[in-house]
């Protein structure tokens, strides 16, 4: 059910920009978005962008220079 956004291979700053626009397009019923990235700087910028839109970020290290970010809608913000 969870939508996955694959931004592997993208150059800076598209991983962040495409995550933000995907979060904005989620319907109110969709609570999580999964982002797969190989762009390390996104680990520092996406949590802040997600938080401003009402999402919390959990980072999972997949290995091989890839990370899965699970962005979950905050309870109080929905």
């Amino acid at each position, binding site marked *: 059910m969870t939508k996955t956004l694959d931004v592997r291979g993208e*150059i800076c700053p598209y991983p*962040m920009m495409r995550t933000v626009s995907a979060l904005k397009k989620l319907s109110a019923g969709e609570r999580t978005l999964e982002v797969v990235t190989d762009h390390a700087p996104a680990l520092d910028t996406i949590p802040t962008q997600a938080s401003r839109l009402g999402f919390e*970020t959990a980072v999972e290290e997949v290995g091989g220079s890839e990370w899965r970010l699970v962005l979950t809608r905050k309870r109080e913000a929905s």
Partner: protein
Amino acid sequence: MTTRAARVHADALGAGAPSRDVLRALAAWTVAALVLLMAYRVDTQFARFWAFGLAFGFVLQRGRFCFASAFRDLFLLGHGRNMKGVLLGLVIASIGFAIVMARQVPIADLGFLPPTANVLPAGVHTALGGVLFGVGMVLAGGCVSGSLYRMGEGYVASWVAFAGLMGGLLVSSYTWNWWWEASMSTAPQVWLPRSLGHSGALIVTLLALGAVFIGVLWIEHRAGGVVPAPRTADEVSDSVAADLRALGRRVFVRGWPILIAGAVLGGLNVLLFTAQEPWGFTGEVARWSAELAGLVGAAPPPLLGASDLPGCVIVVSDGIVNHMTFLVVGMWVGSFAGALGAGEFKVRVPAQPVRYAQSLSGGVLMGYGAGIAMGCTIGAFFSSVPSLAINGWVFAVFLAVGAWIGTLIIRRIA
């Protein structure tokens, strides 16, 4: 996927044999050390610049330190992470440079300039170069130093940007003499200590950096504040060995906090200035493109005035290899070794063909901008502001304008 995640987790606990990442990184560092030894036997200066190159590349990679995002993210994301690192680096370098320059030129108002500091003519060429460079670095997704370290991490688009950069620098060297007559030769080289004294110039520079810092905080709060990046939890340490393993992971595997990276880069710049000259390398890259053009009989003409200027001014010829070659190649190798050790090396191929066009044209704009501004975000900014010279600030203001224009463009290229 699960096995890979499990392997990473095992590394975190320091269990078992050294991972493939550690072995690869050790191999890369061994090669780098052998080059250092060979360079030392030829010329100690080669070895020194090789070591500095390795250090700069490693720190840029570990800190994910990016001048392009420092400027761009203020407009694009309302986020000042990289700019805060840049500002701390500038504070440290300004203090260090001021001490070195006060020894080089004890009486500041006699009219002599510190011989190797990046006090450059500030004029229309600096401003236009800043705007072009700012647009270019945002289009290409990284400035010159950013592209260099991302080349070492395996970003294919950064190699394309570097090719564009060489092209842009070559074009700028064909037009250099026009710019020399029109603007550079009459533009003033303003060194703040001449009118404010050494301490006064340093205080004014630090206050200005502090004002920029407050502006960055204001931008972040207006955009909704920032949250720290989630960190993986530290395992409980029960021995010296576990402490050392945790420290090793913090240095070689996890990304560094931006303030540490900025402070180390500022400190390295002071050391390099003390040893010889401030950090900078676009002059060397321009030399490569001029040499290549010379092979097909299209070498640029002799550049008026360039030999009398410090910093990253385009160099026409200096043999096939010189100390700066070691600095630039060292940055690639340092970043490559850093990425290997962290498990962050990967050949990254953009899915959309438009990214290649974007990186190439961004590189060309950066190259032309760096050519006429006499340096990139390093030479004309990160080494010029600490030289207590006005050209660093002029370049920075127009770099910000260019970065803002760049964000308008990339928003349209989805």
